Protein backbone atom coordinates (compact mmCIF):
# COMPACT_ATOMS: atom_id res chain seq x y z
CA UNK A 1 0.00 0.00 0.00
CA UNK A 2 1.07 3.52 -0.68
CA UNK A 3 1.29 5.74 2.38
CA UNK A 4 -1.51 8.24 2.70
CA UNK A 5 -0.31 11.43 1.14
CA UNK A 6 -1.13 14.83 2.47
CA UNK A 7 -1.41 17.23 -0.45
CA UNK A 8 1.02 20.13 -0.40
CA UNK A 9 -0.37 22.07 -3.33
CA UNK A 10 -3.88 22.81 -4.52
CA UNK A 11 -3.18 20.91 -7.70
CA UNK A 12 -2.15 17.72 -5.96
CA UNK A 13 -5.14 18.11 -3.68
CA UNK A 14 -7.44 18.19 -6.68
CA UNK A 15 -5.69 15.16 -8.14
CA UNK A 16 -6.18 13.24 -4.91
CA UNK A 17 -9.80 14.28 -4.67
CA UNK A 18 -10.41 12.72 -8.06
CA UNK A 19 -9.27 9.40 -6.63
CA UNK A 20 -11.36 9.49 -3.49
CA UNK A 21 -14.38 7.20 -3.13
CA UNK A 22 -17.37 8.83 -4.73
CA UNK A 23 -21.09 8.28 -4.87
CA UNK A 24 -21.03 8.14 -8.66
CA UNK A 25 -17.71 6.57 -9.50
CA UNK A 26 -15.21 7.25 -12.23
CA UNK A 27 -15.18 4.70 -15.03
CA UNK A 28 -12.96 1.76 -14.13
CA UNK A 29 -9.51 1.82 -15.63
CA UNK A 30 -7.75 -1.34 -16.70
CA UNK A 31 -4.13 -2.26 -16.11
CA UNK A 32 -2.72 -4.25 -18.99
CA UNK A 33 0.38 -5.89 -17.57
CA UNK A 34 3.05 -7.76 -19.44
CA UNK A 35 4.47 -10.55 -17.31
CA UNK A 36 8.11 -11.40 -16.85
CA UNK A 37 8.04 -13.81 -19.78
CA UNK A 38 5.59 -13.63 -22.65
CA UNK A 39 5.01 -15.54 -25.84
CA UNK A 40 4.08 -13.89 -29.12
CA UNK A 41 0.49 -15.04 -28.62
CA UNK A 42 0.28 -13.34 -25.25
CA UNK A 43 1.95 -10.18 -26.52
CA UNK A 44 -0.51 -9.90 -29.39
CA UNK A 45 -3.42 -10.74 -27.12
CA UNK A 46 -2.47 -7.98 -24.70
CA UNK A 47 -2.18 -5.60 -27.64
CA UNK A 48 -5.68 -6.51 -28.80
CA UNK A 49 -7.17 -6.25 -25.32
CA UNK A 50 -5.54 -2.84 -25.11
CA UNK A 51 -7.19 -1.71 -28.33
CA UNK A 52 -10.59 -3.04 -27.23
CA UNK A 53 -10.36 -1.35 -23.85
CA UNK A 54 -8.98 2.01 -25.04
CA UNK A 55 -9.02 4.74 -23.76
CA UNK A 56 -9.61 3.51 -20.19
CA UNK A 57 -6.33 1.61 -20.01
CA UNK A 58 -2.91 1.84 -18.47
CA UNK A 59 -0.40 -0.18 -20.40
CA UNK A 60 2.53 -1.59 -18.47
CA UNK A 61 4.50 -2.91 -21.40
CA UNK A 62 7.79 -3.56 -19.64
CA UNK A 63 8.45 -6.91 -18.06
CA UNK A 64 6.80 -7.17 -14.68
CA UNK A 65 7.57 -9.89 -12.19
CA UNK A 66 3.98 -10.25 -11.04
CA UNK A 67 2.33 -13.47 -9.95
CA UNK A 68 -0.97 -12.47 -8.35
CA UNK A 69 -1.84 -15.97 -7.16
CA UNK A 70 1.38 -16.13 -5.12
CA UNK A 71 1.68 -12.51 -4.07
CA UNK A 72 -1.15 -10.08 -4.57
CA UNK A 73 0.54 -7.02 -3.08
CA UNK A 74 2.31 -6.08 -6.31
CA UNK A 75 -0.83 -5.80 -8.40
CA UNK A 76 -2.59 -4.03 -5.53
CA UNK A 77 0.24 -1.52 -5.46
CA UNK A 78 0.05 -0.91 -9.19
CA UNK A 79 -3.72 -0.61 -9.02
CA UNK A 80 -3.49 1.99 -6.27
CA UNK A 81 -0.77 3.90 -8.03
CA UNK A 82 -2.57 4.09 -11.35
CA UNK A 83 -6.05 4.34 -9.83
CA UNK A 84 -7.11 1.30 -11.84
CA UNK A 85 -9.35 -1.45 -10.56
CA UNK A 86 -9.38 -3.93 -13.41
CA UNK A 87 -6.29 -5.79 -14.47
CA UNK A 88 -5.08 -8.33 -16.93
CA UNK A 89 -1.70 -9.99 -16.81
CA UNK A 90 -0.25 -12.03 -19.63
CA UNK A 91 2.64 -14.41 -19.13
CA UNK A 92 4.19 -17.53 -20.55
CA UNK A 93 6.16 -20.19 -18.74
CA UNK A 94 6.97 -23.85 -19.07
CA UNK A 95 4.57 -24.76 -16.32
CA UNK A 96 1.81 -22.45 -17.51
CA UNK A 97 2.15 -21.65 -21.20
CA UNK A 98 0.08 -18.81 -22.68
CA UNK A 99 -1.26 -17.64 -19.37
CA UNK A 100 -3.79 -14.84 -18.99
CA UNK A 101 -5.08 -13.51 -15.67
CA UNK A 102 -8.15 -11.30 -15.58
CA UNK A 103 -9.22 -9.80 -12.30
CA UNK A 104 -10.38 -6.77 -10.42
CA UNK A 105 -9.63 -4.83 -7.29
CA UNK A 106 -11.98 -3.35 -4.75
CA UNK A 107 -10.80 -0.64 -2.37
CA UNK A 108 -7.23 -1.21 -3.61
CA UNK A 109 -7.45 -4.83 -2.49
CA UNK A 110 -7.74 -7.88 -4.65
CA UNK A 111 -11.40 -8.74 -5.24
CA UNK A 112 -11.45 -11.69 -7.61
CA UNK A 113 -9.39 -13.10 -10.45
CA UNK A 114 -9.36 -15.94 -12.93
CA UNK A 115 -6.35 -17.48 -14.63
CA UNK A 116 -6.77 -18.93 -18.12
CA UNK A 117 -4.91 -20.88 -20.69
CA UNK A 118 -5.19 -19.18 -24.07
CA UNK A 119 -5.41 -21.23 -27.25
CA UNK A 120 -6.45 -20.79 -30.89
CA UNK A 121 -5.60 -17.14 -30.80
CA UNK A 122 -6.33 -14.93 -33.80
CA UNK A 123 -5.52 -11.26 -33.49
CA UNK A 124 -7.33 -8.27 -34.98
CA UNK A 125 -4.46 -7.89 -37.41
CA UNK A 126 -4.70 -11.45 -38.63
CA UNK A 127 -8.41 -11.21 -39.38
CA UNK A 128 -9.20 -9.19 -42.46
CA UNK A 129 -12.28 -7.09 -42.07
CA UNK A 130 -13.68 -3.93 -40.56
CA UNK A 131 -12.72 -2.77 -37.08
CA UNK A 132 -14.76 -0.71 -34.66
CA UNK A 133 -13.79 2.72 -33.40
CA UNK A 134 -11.98 3.10 -30.07
CA UNK A 135 -13.84 3.62 -26.82
CA UNK A 136 -17.11 2.21 -28.13
CA UNK A 137 -19.41 0.41 -25.72
CA UNK A 138 -19.75 -3.18 -26.87
CA UNK A 139 -22.75 -5.44 -26.82
CA UNK A 140 -21.87 -8.46 -24.72
CA UNK A 141 -23.41 -11.81 -25.55
CA UNK A 142 -23.15 -14.78 -23.21
CA UNK A 143 -24.22 -18.16 -24.43
CA UNK A 144 -24.29 -21.57 -22.85
CA UNK A 145 -26.42 -22.91 -20.02
CA UNK A 146 -23.41 -23.45 -17.73
CA UNK A 147 -23.23 -19.79 -16.82
CA UNK A 148 -26.23 -20.32 -14.55
CA UNK A 149 -25.71 -23.97 -13.68
CA UNK A 150 -22.31 -23.37 -12.09
CA UNK A 151 -22.19 -20.60 -9.46
CA UNK A 152 -18.47 -19.98 -10.05
CA UNK A 153 -19.20 -19.34 -13.70
CA UNK A 154 -21.92 -16.84 -12.75
CA UNK A 155 -19.21 -14.93 -10.95
CA UNK A 156 -16.92 -15.21 -13.95
CA UNK A 157 -19.74 -13.88 -16.14
CA UNK A 158 -20.00 -10.90 -13.82
CA UNK A 159 -16.25 -10.35 -14.11
CA UNK A 160 -16.38 -10.54 -17.91
CA UNK A 161 -19.27 -8.06 -17.98
CA UNK A 162 -17.38 -5.69 -15.70
CA UNK A 163 -14.17 -6.07 -17.65
CA UNK A 164 -15.54 -5.54 -21.15
CA UNK A 165 -18.52 -3.24 -20.59
CA UNK A 166 -16.57 0.00 -20.98
CA UNK A 167 -17.85 3.24 -19.58
CA UNK A 168 -21.24 3.28 -17.89
CA UNK A 169 -23.86 5.00 -20.00
CA UNK A 170 -27.39 6.26 -19.54
CA UNK A 171 -28.05 6.47 -23.26
CA UNK A 172 -26.58 4.81 -26.32
CA UNK A 173 -26.47 5.89 -29.95
CA UNK A 174 -28.61 3.29 -31.70
CA UNK A 175 -26.85 3.60 -35.03
CA UNK A 176 -23.45 3.31 -33.37
CA UNK A 177 -23.76 -0.29 -32.19
CA UNK A 178 -20.62 -1.55 -33.87
CA UNK A 179 -19.03 -4.12 -31.65
CA UNK A 180 -20.20 -7.43 -30.22
CA UNK A 181 -18.26 -9.54 -27.77
CA UNK A 182 -19.50 -13.07 -27.60
CA UNK A 183 -18.49 -15.51 -24.89
CA UNK A 184 -19.76 -19.05 -25.24
CA UNK A 185 -19.15 -21.69 -22.62
CA UNK A 186 -19.00 -25.38 -23.25
CA UNK A 187 -18.37 -28.32 -20.95
CA UNK A 188 -15.60 -30.43 -22.36
CA UNK A 189 -16.09 -33.91 -21.21
CA UNK A 190 -14.62 -36.69 -23.29
CA UNK A 191 -15.93 -39.59 -21.21
CA UNK A 192 -19.45 -38.73 -20.30
CA UNK A 193 -21.53 -36.52 -22.54
CA UNK A 194 -24.50 -36.30 -20.20
CA UNK A 195 -22.58 -34.43 -17.52
CA UNK A 196 -24.08 -31.00 -16.86
CA UNK A 197 -22.08 -29.77 -13.89
CA UNK A 198 -18.61 -30.12 -12.42
CA UNK A 199 -16.85 -28.36 -9.61
CA UNK A 200 -13.64 -28.41 -11.60
CA UNK A 201 -13.65 -25.32 -13.75
CA UNK A 202 -10.86 -26.62 -15.98
CA UNK A 203 -13.46 -28.76 -17.73
CA UNK A 204 -15.14 -25.70 -19.17
CA UNK A 205 -14.01 -24.02 -22.32
CA UNK A 206 -14.82 -20.43 -23.19
CA UNK A 207 -14.94 -19.24 -26.76
CA UNK A 208 -14.20 -15.55 -26.87
CA UNK A 209 -15.21 -14.00 -30.19
CA UNK A 210 -15.40 -10.36 -31.12
CA UNK A 211 -17.39 -9.29 -34.15
CA UNK A 212 -18.15 -6.12 -36.02
CA UNK A 213 -21.86 -5.52 -36.49
CA UNK A 214 -23.57 -3.88 -39.38
CA UNK A 215 -27.20 -2.86 -39.13
CA UNK A 216 -28.89 -3.41 -42.50
CA UNK A 217 -32.25 -2.26 -43.79
CA UNK A 218 -35.02 -4.75 -43.28
CA UNK A 219 -38.06 -2.90 -44.57
CA UNK A 220 -39.15 -2.36 -40.97
CA UNK A 221 -38.19 -0.19 -38.06
CA UNK A 222 -35.90 -2.88 -36.65
CA UNK A 223 -32.64 -3.42 -38.53
CA UNK A 224 -31.25 -6.71 -39.72
CA UNK A 225 -28.03 -7.51 -37.87
CA UNK A 226 -25.12 -8.99 -39.76
CA UNK A 227 -21.78 -9.85 -38.18
CA UNK A 228 -18.30 -9.86 -39.58
CA UNK A 229 -15.18 -11.25 -37.94
CA UNK A 230 -13.15 -8.59 -36.26
CA UNK A 231 -11.01 -10.26 -33.64
CA UNK A 232 -9.49 -11.06 -31.29
CA UNK A 233 -10.60 -14.70 -31.29
CA UNK A 234 -9.37 -17.03 -28.61
CA UNK A 235 -10.38 -19.95 -26.46
CA UNK A 236 -9.94 -19.98 -22.70
CA UNK A 237 -9.68 -22.72 -20.12
CA UNK A 238 -9.59 -21.85 -16.43
CA UNK A 239 -6.40 -22.76 -14.58
CA UNK A 240 -6.69 -21.23 -11.15
CA UNK A 241 -9.18 -18.79 -9.73
CA UNK A 242 -10.04 -16.82 -6.65
CA UNK A 243 -13.51 -15.45 -6.04
CA UNK A 244 -14.53 -12.65 -3.74
CA UNK A 245 -15.67 -13.34 -0.20
CA UNK A 246 -19.34 -12.77 0.59
CA UNK A 247 -18.39 -9.93 2.88
CA UNK A 248 -16.40 -8.14 0.18
CA UNK A 249 -19.18 -8.74 -2.30
CA UNK A 250 -21.73 -7.21 0.04
CA UNK A 251 -19.53 -4.18 0.68
CA UNK A 252 -18.83 -3.62 -2.98
CA UNK A 253 -22.40 -3.82 -4.17
CA UNK A 254 -23.79 -1.44 -1.56
CA UNK A 255 -25.80 1.34 -3.11
CA UNK A 256 -25.06 4.76 -1.59
CA UNK A 257 -28.01 6.32 0.14
CA UNK A 258 -27.86 9.33 -2.16
CA UNK A 259 -28.78 7.10 -5.11
CA UNK A 260 -31.80 5.56 -3.45
CA UNK A 261 -34.91 6.99 -4.95
CA UNK A 262 -37.41 7.72 -2.23
CA UNK A 263 -40.79 6.23 -2.95
CA UNK A 264 -43.24 9.03 -3.37
CA UNK A 265 -46.67 8.07 -2.22
CA UNK A 266 -49.79 8.72 -4.25
CA UNK A 267 -48.00 10.05 -7.32
CA UNK A 268 -47.89 8.00 -10.48
CA UNK A 269 -47.18 8.51 -14.15
CA UNK A 270 -49.18 7.08 -17.01
CA UNK A 271 -47.90 5.97 -20.41
CA UNK A 272 -48.27 9.43 -21.90
CA UNK A 273 -46.00 10.99 -19.34
CA UNK A 274 -48.82 12.60 -17.40
CA UNK A 275 -48.39 12.97 -13.68
CA UNK A 276 -51.27 11.58 -11.72
CA UNK A 277 -51.86 12.33 -8.08
CA UNK A 278 -54.24 10.76 -5.63
CA UNK A 279 -55.61 13.12 -3.03
CA UNK A 280 -57.11 11.87 0.18
CA UNK A 281 -60.04 13.87 1.51
CA UNK A 282 -61.45 13.18 4.92
CA UNK A 283 -65.09 12.13 5.35
CA UNK A 284 -67.40 14.98 4.53
CA UNK A 285 -69.77 16.39 7.04
CA UNK A 286 -73.00 16.35 5.08
CA UNK A 287 -74.80 18.47 7.63
CA UNK A 288 -72.61 21.42 7.04
CA UNK A 289 -72.44 21.36 3.24
CA UNK A 290 -73.43 24.61 1.65
CA UNK A 291 -76.22 23.76 -0.77
CA UNK A 292 -78.62 25.96 -2.70
CA UNK A 293 -80.11 28.50 -0.47
CA UNK A 294 -83.84 27.88 -0.38
CA UNK A 295 -86.00 29.64 2.11
CA UNK A 296 -87.91 26.48 2.95
CA UNK A 297 -84.77 24.68 4.01
CA UNK A 298 -83.64 27.43 6.31
CA UNK A 299 -83.69 26.61 9.99
CA UNK A 300 -85.93 28.93 11.78
CA UNK A 301 -85.85 29.72 15.46
CA UNK A 302 -88.44 27.63 17.31
CA UNK A 303 -90.57 30.42 18.66
CA UNK A 304 -91.39 31.73 15.21
CA UNK A 305 -93.13 28.49 14.22
CA UNK A 306 -96.70 28.59 15.11
Amino acid at each position, binding site marked *: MLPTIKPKTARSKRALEKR*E*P*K*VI*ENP*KKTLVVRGSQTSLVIQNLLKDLLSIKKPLVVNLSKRNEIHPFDDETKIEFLGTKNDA*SLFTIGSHSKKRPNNLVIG*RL*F*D*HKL*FDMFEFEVS*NFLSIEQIKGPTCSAGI*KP*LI*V*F*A*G*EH*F*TLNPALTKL*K*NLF*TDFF*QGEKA*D*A*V*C*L*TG*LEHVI*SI*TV*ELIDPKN*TTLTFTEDLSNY*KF*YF*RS*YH*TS*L*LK*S*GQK*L*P*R*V*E*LENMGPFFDLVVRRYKT*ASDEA*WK*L*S*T*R*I*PKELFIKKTKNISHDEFGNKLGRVHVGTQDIQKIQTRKVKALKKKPLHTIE
Partner: protein
Amino acid sequence: MDVSEVLKKNEAKYKPVTVEKALPLNFDLGLMTVYDCNLFEKDFNKKKVLEKNLLKNTRDITQLLVNQLFGLPTETTDEGVMGTLPKPIESIPREKPVPKDKPLTRWEKFAKVKGIQKRKKTRMVYDESTGDLKPTWGYKGMNKKEESEWLIPIPANAGPDHDVRKDMENKRKERVEKNTKRRTRNMEEAAAGTAVGKNSKAFRKAQLKQTIILSKTSTASLGKFDKKLEGEPKIKRAKRKTESVTRSALEEREINKSILKKITGI
Protein backbone atom coordinates in the same frame (compact mmCIF):
# COMPACT_ATOMS: atom_id res chain seq x y z
CA MET B 1 -57.09 -5.64 -54.32
CA ASP B 2 -55.05 -8.17 -52.45
CA VAL B 3 -52.00 -6.63 -50.84
CA SER B 4 -50.67 -9.75 -49.22
CA GLU B 5 -48.81 -10.69 -52.41
CA VAL B 6 -47.12 -7.34 -52.54
CA LEU B 7 -46.21 -7.51 -48.86
CA LYS B 8 -44.76 -10.97 -49.28
CA LYS B 9 -42.72 -9.83 -52.23
CA ASN B 10 -41.43 -6.89 -50.28
CA GLU B 11 -40.60 -9.10 -47.35
CA ALA B 12 -38.69 -11.50 -49.55
CA LYS B 13 -36.37 -8.69 -50.54
CA TYR B 14 -35.02 -8.44 -47.01
CA LYS B 15 -33.74 -10.98 -44.55
CA PRO B 16 -35.91 -11.51 -41.45
CA VAL B 17 -35.33 -9.68 -38.17
CA THR B 18 -37.02 -12.29 -36.00
CA VAL B 19 -35.29 -15.22 -34.36
CA GLU B 20 -36.87 -18.30 -32.83
CA LYS B 21 -35.50 -19.39 -29.46
CA ALA B 22 -36.76 -22.22 -27.26
CA LEU B 23 -36.10 -20.39 -24.01
CA PRO B 24 -36.44 -16.62 -23.62
CA LEU B 25 -33.19 -14.71 -23.28
CA ASN B 26 -32.14 -12.70 -20.24
CA PHE B 27 -31.58 -9.15 -21.34
CA ASP B 28 -29.76 -6.61 -19.23
CA LEU B 29 -30.20 -3.52 -21.35
CA GLY B 30 -28.59 -1.23 -18.78
CA LEU B 31 -25.29 -3.01 -19.35
CA MET B 32 -26.10 -3.88 -22.97
CA THR B 33 -25.59 -7.56 -22.24
CA VAL B 34 -27.69 -10.59 -23.02
CA TYR B 35 -27.51 -14.10 -21.72
CA ASP B 36 -28.76 -17.03 -23.72
CA CYS B 37 -29.25 -20.16 -21.64
CA ASN B 38 -30.42 -22.27 -24.56
CA LEU B 39 -28.42 -25.36 -25.37
CA PHE B 40 -25.74 -24.68 -27.87
CA GLU B 41 -25.28 -27.06 -30.78
CA LYS B 42 -22.58 -29.47 -29.81
CA ASP B 43 -20.10 -29.73 -32.56
CA PHE B 44 -16.90 -28.47 -31.15
CA ASN B 45 -14.51 -30.81 -32.82
CA LYS B 46 -14.43 -29.40 -36.30
CA LYS B 47 -12.97 -25.95 -36.18
CA LYS B 48 -14.68 -24.54 -39.24
CA VAL B 49 -18.10 -25.83 -38.18
CA LEU B 50 -17.53 -24.42 -34.73
CA GLU B 51 -16.68 -20.97 -36.07
CA LYS B 52 -19.76 -21.02 -38.27
CA ASN B 53 -21.98 -22.10 -35.41
CA LEU B 54 -20.57 -19.49 -33.07
CA LEU B 55 -21.08 -16.76 -35.64
CA LYS B 56 -24.65 -17.86 -36.41
CA ASN B 57 -25.58 -18.21 -32.75
CA THR B 58 -24.07 -14.85 -31.84
CA ARG B 59 -25.81 -13.17 -34.76
CA ASP B 60 -29.18 -14.53 -33.65
CA ILE B 61 -28.71 -13.40 -30.07
CA THR B 62 -27.35 -10.01 -31.14
CA GLN B 63 -30.37 -9.57 -33.41
CA LEU B 64 -32.67 -10.11 -30.44
CA LEU B 65 -30.62 -7.72 -28.29
CA VAL B 66 -30.65 -5.04 -30.99
CA ASN B 67 -34.41 -5.50 -31.37
CA GLN B 68 -34.75 -4.84 -27.64
CA LEU B 69 -32.46 -1.81 -27.78
CA PHE B 70 -34.42 -0.33 -30.68
CA GLY B 71 -37.58 -0.72 -28.60
CA LEU B 72 -36.23 1.61 -25.91
CA PRO B 73 -37.56 5.17 -25.58
CA THR B 74 -35.45 7.37 -27.80
CA GLU B 75 -34.20 10.92 -27.75
CA THR B 76 -32.88 12.75 -30.77
CA THR B 77 -29.67 14.69 -30.19
CA ASP B 78 -26.94 16.15 -32.39
CA GLU B 79 -25.08 12.86 -32.25
CA GLY B 80 -28.03 10.87 -33.56
CA VAL B 81 -30.88 8.88 -32.12
CA MET B 82 -30.06 7.96 -28.55
CA GLY B 83 -31.83 5.13 -26.80
CA THR B 84 -32.12 5.76 -23.09
CA LEU B 85 -30.93 2.73 -21.20
CA PRO B 86 -32.74 1.45 -18.13
CA LYS B 87 -30.99 0.72 -14.85
CA PRO B 88 -28.77 -2.38 -14.95
CA ILE B 89 -30.23 -5.54 -13.43
CA GLU B 90 -26.97 -7.30 -12.64
CA SER B 91 -25.06 -5.61 -9.85
CA ILE B 92 -21.49 -4.85 -10.78
CA PRO B 93 -19.12 -4.31 -7.84
CA ARG B 94 -17.98 -0.81 -7.14
CA GLU B 95 -14.37 0.28 -7.51
CA LYS B 96 -14.13 1.81 -4.04
CA PRO B 97 -16.41 1.61 -1.01
CA VAL B 98 -19.30 4.00 -0.55
CA PRO B 99 -17.91 7.29 0.80
CA LYS B 100 -18.36 7.83 4.51
CA ASP B 101 -19.96 10.95 5.91
CA LYS B 102 -17.31 13.33 7.13
CA PRO B 103 -17.88 14.57 10.68
CA LEU B 104 -18.97 18.20 10.76
CA THR B 105 -16.47 20.72 12.06
CA ARG B 106 -17.34 23.00 14.94
CA TRP B 107 -18.05 25.85 12.53
CA GLU B 108 -20.18 23.67 10.25
CA LYS B 109 -22.24 22.53 13.22
CA PHE B 110 -22.73 26.11 14.33
CA ALA B 111 -23.60 27.25 10.81
CA LYS B 112 -26.14 24.48 10.51
CA VAL B 113 -27.88 25.49 13.71
CA LYS B 114 -27.88 29.14 12.74
CA GLY B 115 -28.78 28.44 9.15
CA ILE B 116 -25.72 30.23 7.82
CA GLN B 117 -25.11 29.55 4.16
CA LYS B 118 -21.68 29.45 2.62
CA ARG B 119 -21.15 32.15 0.07
CA LYS B 120 -18.25 33.03 -2.10
CA LYS B 121 -16.26 36.12 -1.32
CA THR B 122 -14.18 37.84 -3.94
CA ARG B 123 -10.56 38.42 -3.02
CA MET B 124 -10.56 41.97 -4.38
CA VAL B 125 -12.47 44.69 -2.54
CA TYR B 126 -13.43 48.12 -3.75
CA ASP B 127 -11.57 50.92 -1.97
CA GLU B 128 -13.86 53.91 -1.82
CA SER B 129 -11.19 56.44 -0.92
CA THR B 130 -8.97 55.70 -3.91
CA GLY B 131 -11.61 54.23 -6.21
CA ASP B 132 -9.81 51.04 -7.21
CA LEU B 133 -9.86 47.37 -6.31
CA LYS B 134 -7.57 46.11 -3.60
CA PRO B 135 -6.98 42.67 -2.11
CA THR B 136 -8.81 41.93 1.14
CA TRP B 137 -5.59 40.69 2.72
CA GLY B 138 -1.96 40.21 1.80
CA TYR B 139 0.35 42.73 0.19
CA LYS B 140 -1.30 46.18 0.23
CA GLY B 141 -4.38 44.49 1.61
CA MET B 142 -7.41 46.34 2.86
CA ASN B 143 -6.93 44.93 6.36
CA LYS B 144 -3.77 47.03 6.65
CA LYS B 145 -5.36 50.20 5.37
CA GLU B 146 -6.01 51.77 8.73
CA GLU B 147 -2.50 51.31 10.08
CA SER B 148 -0.84 52.51 6.91
CA GLU B 149 -2.76 55.78 6.79
CA TRP B 150 -0.42 58.78 6.68
CA LEU B 151 -2.17 60.43 9.63
CA ILE B 152 -3.57 58.56 12.62
CA PRO B 153 -5.13 60.32 15.60
CA ILE B 154 -3.58 59.31 18.92
CA PRO B 155 -6.05 58.68 21.74
CA ALA B 156 -5.97 61.27 24.50
CA ASN B 157 -5.11 58.79 27.25
CA ALA B 158 -2.13 57.32 25.41
CA GLY B 159 1.31 57.35 27.01
CA PRO B 160 4.29 59.20 25.56
CA ASP B 161 5.89 56.11 24.00
CA HIS B 162 2.65 54.73 22.61
CA ASP B 163 3.01 53.62 18.98
CA VAL B 164 -0.43 53.63 17.39
CA ARG B 165 0.71 51.95 14.23
CA LYS B 166 2.42 49.12 16.11
CA ASP B 167 -0.59 48.73 18.34
CA MET B 168 -2.92 48.33 15.36
CA GLU B 169 -0.61 45.85 13.73
CA ASN B 170 -0.39 43.79 16.91
CA LYS B 171 -4.15 43.70 17.18
CA ARG B 172 -4.47 42.51 13.59
CA LYS B 173 -1.88 39.79 14.15
CA GLU B 174 -3.70 38.68 17.27
CA ARG B 175 -6.88 38.24 15.29
CA VAL B 176 -5.07 36.07 12.78
CA GLU B 177 -3.46 34.08 15.59
CA LYS B 178 -6.82 33.50 17.23
CA ASN B 179 -8.26 32.23 14.02
CA THR B 180 -5.42 29.81 13.33
CA LYS B 181 -5.76 28.47 16.87
CA ARG B 182 -9.42 27.80 16.30
CA ARG B 183 -8.72 26.22 12.97
CA THR B 184 -6.19 23.79 14.43
CA ARG B 185 -8.58 23.00 17.26
CA ASN B 186 -11.31 22.22 14.77
CA MET B 187 -9.00 20.01 12.81
CA GLU B 188 -7.91 18.14 15.93
CA GLU B 189 -11.50 17.65 16.94
CA ALA B 190 -12.41 16.39 13.50
CA ALA B 191 -9.50 13.95 13.54
CA ALA B 192 -10.48 12.71 17.00
CA GLY B 193 -14.06 12.42 15.85
CA THR B 194 -13.08 10.05 13.10
CA ALA B 195 -10.85 8.08 15.48
CA VAL B 196 -13.40 7.34 18.17
CA GLY B 197 -17.02 7.50 17.26
CA LYS B 198 -17.35 11.26 17.09
CA ASN B 199 -16.82 11.68 20.85
CA SER B 200 -13.83 13.97 20.67
CA LYS B 201 -13.92 15.20 24.26
CA ALA B 202 -13.73 11.72 25.73
CA PHE B 203 -10.96 10.86 23.33
CA ARG B 204 -8.89 13.86 24.35
CA LYS B 205 -9.49 13.13 28.01
CA ALA B 206 -8.24 9.59 27.62
CA GLN B 207 -5.25 10.80 25.70
CA LEU B 208 -4.36 13.33 28.40
CA LYS B 209 -4.65 10.69 31.09
CA GLN B 210 -2.30 8.47 29.20
CA THR B 211 0.25 11.27 28.88
CA ILE B 212 0.12 12.00 32.61
CA ILE B 213 0.70 8.36 33.46
CA LEU B 214 3.57 8.24 31.03
CA SER B 215 5.18 11.39 32.41
CA LYS B 216 5.24 9.90 35.90
CA THR B 217 7.72 7.27 34.85
CA SER B 218 10.32 9.92 34.06
CA THR B 219 11.39 10.39 37.69
CA ALA B 220 13.40 7.91 39.71
CA SER B 221 10.59 7.42 42.20
CA LEU B 222 8.12 6.82 39.39
CA GLY B 223 6.18 9.92 40.38
CA LYS B 224 5.80 8.99 44.05
CA PHE B 225 7.11 12.30 45.38
CA ASP B 226 5.87 14.44 42.52
CA LYS B 227 3.46 17.26 43.02
CA LYS B 228 -0.04 15.89 42.60
CA LEU B 229 -2.25 17.44 39.99
CA GLU B 230 -5.88 18.16 40.57
CA GLY B 231 -8.03 15.21 39.58
CA GLU B 232 -5.01 13.13 38.77
CA PRO B 233 -5.80 9.52 37.89
CA LYS B 234 -4.73 6.89 40.39
CA ILE B 235 -2.17 4.64 38.84
CA LYS B 236 -2.50 0.99 39.51
CA ARG B 237 0.59 -0.98 38.83
CA ALA B 238 0.80 -4.73 38.66
CA LYS B 239 1.89 -6.27 41.96
CA ARG B 240 5.14 -8.11 42.05
CA LYS B 241 4.75 -11.78 42.45
CA THR B 242 7.21 -13.56 44.71
CA GLU B 243 7.79 -17.23 44.45
CA SER B 244 6.90 -19.36 47.38
CA VAL B 245 9.82 -20.31 49.61
CA THR B 246 8.63 -23.83 50.15
CA ARG B 247 8.45 -25.69 46.91
CA SER B 248 9.17 -29.17 45.76
CA ALA B 249 12.64 -30.33 44.76
CA LEU B 250 11.39 -31.13 41.32
CA GLU B 251 10.18 -27.58 40.75
CA GLU B 252 13.42 -26.20 42.11
CA ARG B 253 15.39 -28.35 39.76
CA GLU B 254 13.34 -27.24 36.75
CA ILE B 255 13.91 -23.60 37.58
CA ASN B 256 17.62 -24.11 37.99
CA LYS B 257 17.70 -25.97 34.71
CA SER B 258 16.00 -23.15 32.93
CA ILE B 259 18.48 -20.65 34.33
CA LEU B 260 21.36 -22.83 33.20
CA LYS B 261 19.81 -23.12 29.77
CA LYS B 262 19.53 -19.38 29.51
CA ILE B 263 23.19 -18.95 30.28
CA THR B 264 24.71 -21.78 28.28
CA GLY B 265 22.14 -21.73 25.51
CA ILE B 266 21.87 -25.53 25.34
